[in-house]
């Protein structure tokens, strides 16, 4: 094996990109688009959920609660027509109606009784509040929106109580294991996943298409009649795609920084290593899978099998612990699962090689296994 031939194969990949602007654009624009779409769609919490408040409270408490609601999260309309408001929910125009009955403040206040016992002076007896009930009429067909509305009420009540100087008998004080990630947002924890996802999906896809092209056009045969070995061909491809992935990863992090101001606290070199290994894994898988496709149109049919497991099982959105027990082992067979964990550890927790070496070792192990598989597969196709 010579480095020279490996480099020649890698060089070919870059020259191809120079003339094939569409693929180059796909390589650079598509991951960024994935980052922007996922980041905005999943990273932003619900806003402007339409609700109606029907406030018949004769006192002031209900009004204070309504004021304490987050008016950014809820788009609050007021109405005096309870039946009409409920009809709006039934029609699907509003998500919920919040109704305060006339006695709301009274029921929320301590009850006072004037005790009139014959022969004694009248005494004032104070009893605990009767308990006020606000009524929520809610459409639960969209769980995300319904959940937001339902979470808003206790939060507002809590704020009100705190403002009134009432002390809760039970308090929780947070301390932060990773102080720099104290204010981490959903987007912050999504970005490592999106990077691993984008690199995995696009690298596999492009390798798959490139290799099916090599096989069907006859160029692979032609390469194999030269002194170039299968190992040199595969490693040449890996070299090229590794470099491309590093560029993609850098670009994604830059976009994440500029657009979302994401948190990056760990060593970028370790993150880059994870990204490159992820690409090598994805790339070798692409080569192995390419053997099963006779044409590019068939290769395209494999795309869902690459996207869905990566999307759903690798822990981007669904934590591994939330997966059913029988499904979880499959997660551990996916390289992006390990990549995402490693990237989160590095970018958010600020860990270095001393902590993430196990994940890196696993990614390296996958790289060796899949690369060997790709080389052996190519050799065996000389049947």
């Amino acid at each position, binding site marked *: 094996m010579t480095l020279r031939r490996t480099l020649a194969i890698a060089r070919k990949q870059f020259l191809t990109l120079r003339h094939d602007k569409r693929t180059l654009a796909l390589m650079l624009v598509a991951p960024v688009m994935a980052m922007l779409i996922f980041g905005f769609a999943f990273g932003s919490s619900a806003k402007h959920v339409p609700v109606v408040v029907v406030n018949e409270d004769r006192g002031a408490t209900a009004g204070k609660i309504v004021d304490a609601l987050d008016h950014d999260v809820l788009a609050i309309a007021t109405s005096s027509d309870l039946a009409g408001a409920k009809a709006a929910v039934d029609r699907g125009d509003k998500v919920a109606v919040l109704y305060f009955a006339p006695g709301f403040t009274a029921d929320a206040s301590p009850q006072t009784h004037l005790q009139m016992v014959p022969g004694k002076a009248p005494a004032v007896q104070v009893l605990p509040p009767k308990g006020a009930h606000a009524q929520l009429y809610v459409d639960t067909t969209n769980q995300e929106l319904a959940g937001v509305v339902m979470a808003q009420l206790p939060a507002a009540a809590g704020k009100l109580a705190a403002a009134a100087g009432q002390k809760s008998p039970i308090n929780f004080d947070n301390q932060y294991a990773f102080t720099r990630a104290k204010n981490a947002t959903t987007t912050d924890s999504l970005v490592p996943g999106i990077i691993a996802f984008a690199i995995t999906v696009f690298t596999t896809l492009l390798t798959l298409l490139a290799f099916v092209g090599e096989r069907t056009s006859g160029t692979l045969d032609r390469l194999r009649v030269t*002194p*170039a070995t299968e190992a040199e061909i595969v490693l040449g491809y890996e070299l090229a795609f590794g470099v491309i992935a590093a560029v993609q990863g850098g670009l994604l992090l830059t976009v994440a920084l500029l657009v979302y101001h994401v948190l990056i606290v760990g060593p970028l070199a370790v993150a880059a290593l994870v990204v490159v290994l992820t690409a090598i894994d994805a790339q070798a898988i692409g080569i192995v899978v390419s053997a099963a496709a006779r044409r590019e149109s068939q290769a395209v049919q494999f795309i869902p099998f690459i996207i869905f497991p990566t999307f759903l099982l690798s822990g981007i959105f669904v934590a591994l612990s939330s997966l059913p027990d029988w499904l979880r082992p499959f997660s551990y067979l996916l390289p992006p699962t390990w990549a995402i964990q490693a990237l989160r550890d590095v970018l958010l927790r600020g860990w270095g090689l001393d902590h993430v070496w196990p994940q890196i070792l696993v990614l390296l192990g996958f790289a060796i296994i899949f690369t060997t598989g790709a080389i052996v597969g190519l050799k065996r196709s000389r049947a």
Partner: protein
Amino acid sequence: MNTIQLERVEKQFGAFRALNGLSLRVQQGELYGLIGPNGAGKSTAIKIMVGLQRATGGTAKVLGYGPQDPQVRGLLGYMPQETALYPDLTVTENLDLFGRLYGIEKEERQRRIAELLGLVNLSDWAATVVTNLSGGMQHRTSLAVALLARPKLLILDEPTVGVDPELRASFWAHFDRLRQEGTTILITTHYMDEALRCERVGLINHGQLVAEGTPAELMKQVKVQTLEEAFLAFAGRNKANTEVSA
């Protein structure tokens, strides 16, 4: 020494037998033409010779080695029937890539590329991306790739398909020149005027060698005046045989 030696080679694709005991020998320095109807097994035989496919029976030797022996790599030039070029690379970049894979040093590589571009008359198209070339031009580029390493053995699968008559003549002049320099050449073709220029011709049909000899010998065997008629006679006779035996 035989540069190519196939002994009762068989190739089975599932239930279909593409090569059925094919034996042929090509001597060193010879210009050998392989002819036969579509689907006769010419390309399959060639793929076995260059090590891209393995025979399912019989033995094959090329330059004294098994065709899949790494020693053979780099000693032979192969032009596949399909164009087999990188469509998004220019003519020069395609040639340069293969030059690098053959380990040809930079200056030598550049000199040979310029020379070959002249031979296939593509000097003006050197910087054009292959997709933008006409079919015949792509074919010419493909031939240039096969010639690049100046191999001892050239195996060319229909090198002149889609090439205009003038260039075809210059290709054959080049093949003659190479042979005089000692290169062994095996060529497949459907043009009988090209077969006539070969020293020996092997005619295969249904995966078997049905006739072999100089063009004159072949015509004499079936008592005809043209190689065309000889081709039809042999191809037809063999078909009749297989129908009887089937």
